[in-house]
């Protein structure tokens, strides 16, 4: 089971004088249980792309296939697809409406006909997943929280529905570094324990390098790279051309090489880099 896009075009104002290709010839394959990053500069089509994944937008040409359903504007199909694909939008906290955080997070679950006990359980679990103590926060109003706490409640309200595919559009913008790491770590453990597929739209290359095994790079509505995150960041020239930045571990490896250091470190995740550095240091010490 997977998400697949076959040669997808999306044209805003199609047929009008100002028609505009937001997506052009996109073909993608996202496996079950993957942690995929979607990156690219502002206006490259990231948000348009993810809105195709649960039928908020329909392709002008080409098919979007979720598991075996082709996404199309039919009630039954959309109901099936939206039961499987959840999206956390940018500024999700702008959509708050409920009087308590419990009601806010429970809303989606109730719409899907969860029993009272299931709602309780899902809401508590989702709150813990985003690092907010359910006992303390659930009775509060979502409007009395800080921006970062609101963001986490919004993420919890999607996670609570227990969908197979979770798409997050810039979920960590505005979160403090500790919360950023906590939210992404929890998503990773959700992926491992519940085989949830995580699709992360992000401008933060450090978190992409840390958490996403694969990456889809968009530029002006086309895919300029799809494959291993490591292979992408090793191509510094491509990274620059697509308007992105190198993550810190790749910058570090490059800076060491450029100044002719004998320390050779591995790029990639923080742990990978620090482990390799630790080895280098102990080797040097022994010499």
């Amino acid at each position: 089971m997977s998400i697949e896009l076959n040669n997808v075009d999306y044209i805003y104002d199609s047929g009008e004088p100002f028609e505009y290709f937001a997506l052009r010839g996109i073909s993608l394959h996202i496996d079950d249980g993957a942690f995929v990053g979607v990156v690219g500069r502002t206006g490259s089509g990231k948000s348009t792309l993810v809105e195709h994944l649960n039928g908020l937008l329909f392709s002008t040409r080409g098919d979007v296939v979720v598991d075996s359903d082709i996404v199309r504007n039919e009630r039954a199909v959309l109901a099936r697809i939206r039961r499987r694909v959840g999206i956390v939008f940018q500024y999700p906290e702008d959509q708050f409406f409920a009087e308590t955080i419990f009601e806010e997070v429970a809303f989606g679950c109730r719409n899907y006909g969860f029993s009272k006990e299931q709602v309780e359980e899902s809401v508590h679990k989702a709150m813990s997943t985003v690092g907010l103590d359910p006992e303390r926060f659930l009775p509060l109003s979502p409007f009395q929280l800080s921006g970062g706490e609101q963001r986490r409640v919004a993420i919890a309200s999607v996670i609570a529905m227990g969908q197979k595919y979770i798409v997050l559009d810039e979920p960590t913008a505005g979160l403090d570094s500790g919360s950023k790491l906590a939210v992404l770590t929890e998503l990773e453990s959700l992926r491992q324990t519940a085989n949830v597929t995580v699709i992360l739209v992000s401008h933060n290359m450090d978190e992409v390098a840390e958490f996403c095994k694969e990456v889809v790079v968009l530029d002006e509505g086309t895919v300029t790279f799809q494959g291993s995150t490591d292979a992408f960041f090793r191509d510094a020239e491509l990274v620059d051309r697509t308007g992105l930045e190198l993550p810190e571990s790749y910058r570090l490896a490059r800076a060491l090489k450029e100044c002719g250091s004998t320390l050779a470190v591995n790029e990639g995740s923080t742990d990978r880099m620090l482990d390799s550095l630790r080895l280098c240091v102990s080797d040097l010490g022994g010499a």
Partner: protein
Amino acid sequence: MICLDKVSYQIETSAGAVQVLRDIDLELPDGSISAIVGPNGSGKSTLARLVSGLLRPTSGSVRLLPNGDNQTVTNVRPGLDVGLVFQNPDNQLVATTVEDDIAFGLENLELPHAEMVRRVGDVLHLLGLEQFRDYPPHRLSGGQKQKVAIAGVLAMKPSFLILDEATSLLDPTNRREVMQTVLRLNSELGIGIVIVTHLLDEVLVASRVGVLANGALAAWDSPRAVFSDPAVVELGGLVLPLSARASFLMRERWTDFPLCLTPEEFARATCQLN
């Protein structure tokens, strides 16, 4: 200089009074660059609003002291002395053209028309936005919108500019562009800058960093000193940059290895070992 003296702020909720900030003492010298960091909910945005005069402290004072002059003390006038730029530019652009948007604050000052035109022209030029003068702001990119927001604030001729996570919704290219603009305003016009941020590279441009935790100031020091103290790093909801963690690892063998905050610094320090 902006001088905060024992500033506390509390809000009344249905559950009783909540102390958002307590006993904050800060001095922000004219022309300085400072950063404010802290976990979500620590009171950063409240502090930004207090410094800009949008909120009044429950107790304590926020005052403006001309440099080297301890006699003339005035309260901060909201919108005039200290300009505040928020996170989401879409929430602070109000008019149908860039020019009108920038003029909005000035109109409220009832300035003579010629003076308004002059000031709008000046800031458009200063921020390189002249070609967008007649543009609808919503057609601009995020970085350009944020520059328009900054322009609107600058037209009021503030002596300080506070950026409340003003770049956190921008992509790296736009973010760099906005930050370069802000640094230029500091170096060319001597405008004092306060950056409320979670982003490391924005912390590193500051000469002093205030770390807020649970409504109190846990540290007020140079970026290097802040990152040297693991307790402060944790309190501030910060994560040590990879280069700093690598530096600590190097210290296990070379005890005097410096604390490096960027990959380039780390590479230089490493090569000096060999």
